């Protein structure tokens, strides 16, 4: 009984944090479902993809590939390139996922940009079970995405109210998390490095291929400035 209470308390704490993702993922998931359905795919295709690939940007990028001839090597290569940023998430969450037992597999499996951002930036109250909190965030976000896809692929064409701009909820969420991280840090080396690397690489390489150069630049700069950054960290 006490265990059930603990699990439920973690759920109640986790849910409000996922509401922005609920908005964003339902909208984007519906868009994806509609796109797949008008592209001629049967319902099981978008559903299966959303369940086991579970990565918005790759799923949208893969629509064209799934409409082309069978090209397994290319499909795998694109998946690795588009998803490479997840490597950073793993490195960051290694400490926080320690000792989560069986939950760890699901925490890693469901680590989308949004889930990572919430789990990385949120410090649940001390009386809340942290592994369960993170697992609920992971499950809820995944569920919103799959649910959105199902709605879009099933009945998406009947939605008539003007939803243009609703996906901004995702951008707004990242802005808020960025501000929270900024207020938490005393020095802002890392934030500046991330900003400079992303903007410069976006201008140089364009919207479709700037992420990997950005990641390499961030690694390089964090390496070069390791001493001052570590010193700034110790002052806190």
């Amino acid at each position, binding site marked *: 009984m006490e265990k059930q209470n603990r699990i439920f308390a973690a759920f109640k704490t986790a849910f409000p944090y996922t*509401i*922005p993702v609920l*908005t964003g993922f339902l909208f984007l998931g519906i868009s994806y479902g509609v796109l797949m359905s008008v592209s*001629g*795919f049967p319902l099981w295709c978008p559903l*299966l993809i959303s369940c086991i*690939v579970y990565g918005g940007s*790759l799923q949208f990028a*893969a629509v064209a590939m799934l*409409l082309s001839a*069978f090209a397994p090597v290319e*499909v*795998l290569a694109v*998946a690795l390139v588009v*998803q490479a940023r*997840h*490597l*950073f*998430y*793993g*490195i*960051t*969450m*290694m400490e926080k*996922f320690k000792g989560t037992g069986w939950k760890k597999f699901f925490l*890693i499996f469901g*680590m989308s940009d949004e889930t990572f*951002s919430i789990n*990385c930036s949120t410090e649940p109250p001390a009386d809340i079970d942290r592994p369960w909190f993170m697992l609920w965030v992971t499950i809820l976000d995944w569920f919103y995405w799959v649910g959105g896809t199902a709605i879009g692929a099933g009945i998406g064409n009947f939605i008539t109210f003007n939803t*243009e*701009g609703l996906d*901004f*909820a995702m*951008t*707004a*969420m*990242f*802005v*808020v*998390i960025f501000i929270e*991280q*900024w207020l938490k*840090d005393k020095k802002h080396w*890392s*934030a500046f*490095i*991330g*900003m400079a*690397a*992303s*903007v410069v690489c*976006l201008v140089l390489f364009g*919207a479709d291929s*700037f*992420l990997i150069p950005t990641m390499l630049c*961030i690694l390089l700069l*964090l*390496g070069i400035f*390791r001493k001052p950054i570590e010193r700034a*960290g110790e002052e806190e």
Partner: protein
Amino acid sequence: MIIMNNTQIVISILLLTLGTMLTRFLPFAVFRENKEAPKFVQYLGKALPAAIFSMLVVYCLKNVQLFSGSHGLPEIIAIAVTAGLHLWKRQILLSIAGGTVVYMILVQMIF
């Protein structure tokens, strides 16, 4: 028109999954829980989040055209509203809802 047969589609979907999961699981497979990760990796774990959140904000805005169309004005205004609300009230949901509503009004009615 779909050219692939069902088997090829399923294989493609599994490869998309494999690529994604490799990037998600790799760091955990390389640095096991019972062994201490190299110092540089531990340092990255602490230093990366701020850089990642900067990158994700830029990633969300990557398709905004500054020199044509609405010149990114709806995005700039809505981000200002989101940030302003957040610095003022520190209520995550209020900031996000406020910014999103302003953005929807801007793109649907004004720009």
